[in-house]
């Protein structure tokens, strides 16, 4: 931990070797994050690059309170959302919300590989993908999602519900395919 702090301090002083160390430590995880939000690998690479430029540009603002990884992750996620806003502003527009919130009762006992799970998320329509990622994988509340993405809380909730529906169908389809493959 102290070693990481030393690297961060060196990075704050503008040391290029420290910047590379930070990149090597976190780029794998952050690239996986970008892959979950972005449409394809190229877009994820762009977001990763932009995100790390912001990380190094703002590293002097890191006050060693809380996890550094969480801080980096937040910047990368915000960068991805910014890209959403710039490229596809209509994706973040409120739409007619679901009137009832679904209670998730279904349980699954099949194991999927990371790449399978990733591909399922990547197949989600962008607006559902963003809310699902933020809520389920990043742990944001609906209020935080609404503030970060510039949508209403109702839209966030309904998009999450639709994302879940979509994923349940996909998971079930994949389960059937797996069972058929075994037989």
């Amino acid at each position, binding site marked *: 931990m102290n070693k990481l702090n030393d690297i961060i301090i060196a990075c704050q002083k503008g040391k290029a070797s420290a910047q590379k160390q930070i990149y090597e430590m976190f780029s794998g995880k952050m690239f996986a994050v970008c892959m979950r939000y972005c449409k394809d690998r190229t877009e994820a690479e762009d977001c990763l690059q932009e995100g790390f430029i912001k990380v190094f540009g703002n590293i002097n603002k890191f006050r060693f309170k809380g996890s550094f990884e969480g801080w980096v992750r937040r910047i990368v996620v915000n960068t991805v959302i910014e890209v959403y806003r710039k490229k596809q502003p209509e994706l973040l527009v409120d739409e007619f919300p679901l009137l009832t919130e679904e209670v998730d009762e279904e349980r699954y006992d099949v194991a999927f590989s990371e790449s399978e799970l990733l591909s399922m*998320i990547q197949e989600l329509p962008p607006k559902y993908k963003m809310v699902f990622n933020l809520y389920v994988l990043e742990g944001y509340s609906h209020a935080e999602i609404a503030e970060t993405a510039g949508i209403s809380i109702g839209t966030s909730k309904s998009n999450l519900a639709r994302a879940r529906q979509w994923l349940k169908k996909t998971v079930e389809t994949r389960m059937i395919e797996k069972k058929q493959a075994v037989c």
Partner: protein
Amino acid sequence: MLKDRKDIDTVFKEGLSEHLVTPPSYVWDSVEASLNKQKKQSRALMIWRSVAAAAAVLLLWMSVNLLQDTTTLPIEVSQQVNLKSLSTLSELDEVTDVVETNVSETTVASKKSEFPEMRGLVSKVERNINAPSKKSELAKSNVVLEPLASKANVIVETKYEIKSTLHSNKKKVYYPLFASNTPTSQKRKKTSIRIGGVLSPAYSSKTSSGNNMNMARANGVNVDESGVNSLGGGIQLRVNRGSRWSFETGVMYAQVGQEVTNSLPQYMSDPKAMVESANTPNQMQLTNSMGDIAINKPLRVAYATNRPGDFGEYDMNAAVPRSDGVKQSLEYLEIPMMARYSLFKNFPYVSLAGGFSSNFLVGNTAYAINDSQEEEIGKTEGIKPFVISSSVGVGVEVPLGKLLHFSLEPRFKYFINSVNSDSDYGFQPYSFGVYGGITFVIK
């Protein structure tokens, strides 16, 4: 078995909690290249800020120097000279040489030819210069002025590099499943408010027209009217609603006016009559195009008992029979209403500004100029308490920090009405000033 079952959220959360994907190596190369360029840009910005700060200091220094009278040296010391202390005229010539080499060759030489009595003034200067302290002071003043003059044409060039980062040119298209009837974009306009103080050295002159009866009274004598230098300034407030346009207002202090020479032609041939008349309040007509000057204080003008050149009995205290001229100054509190358009969204922050100002008269003074000394003698009659002016300018801003900006704006101002309510005087001032100051972003 049932215990191991997970809801849909948990399936993804746990499944991807340690997910790692190694990015290609060229991503780091691009990040590194971008960071290096940022470093270079910040260095260039530092240089630019230093140059801007130096330019601001230079501008203020020049402004202060322009506004100061540079010809007061011989005039002031001349009052107590007794030419009898010089034994011969040849000694006087020697003294003159010393002055020319140490002070300013052009100033002294021109003064000598313009005013014969300057030969007498030189003797006093010689004494001051021979004293070591005065001599070094004068030498210093020469050293400072020369580089300033030579720097007038300096052009500073700064190179900027365009940031190039890794981006795919491939167009990315998303297909939303649900069509939306709501507007496709939501622009969130952020209002920013800036407040700042500016200082404005300016040169003002005028255009004049109208049936000026007072000019006719000059009876063929030339009346020479010239502009004046002044120093203004105030507080400016700028509101921007997120677009390139912004609105600007504030409270500014500004001066306009003119200097009138040869405005006392009727007395030039008879200095004694001039003094007698001038010492009688409210009876003096000073020819000019701004308006009649109401005298509320007698002119402190003396006349010579002997002709200049008669060294024997010449008394310099009384040897100023002429008034060098009259200065008419109008002071205004200006409330500008300006629209500003930013030419670029990013650095360099150059903008065009234009608008109108309400000018409220707060000062109206006429001065007699005697030997570069200004003495208040009254005011110009018929001046309107309120006039409208128009302004255009080109502004440049340099960020000194996140919330602090340095601004510099050459601005041209023109009064769209005559300042005098009398139709005989169509006096419309204009001025060219350089508005420099610091702006704070308060919101």
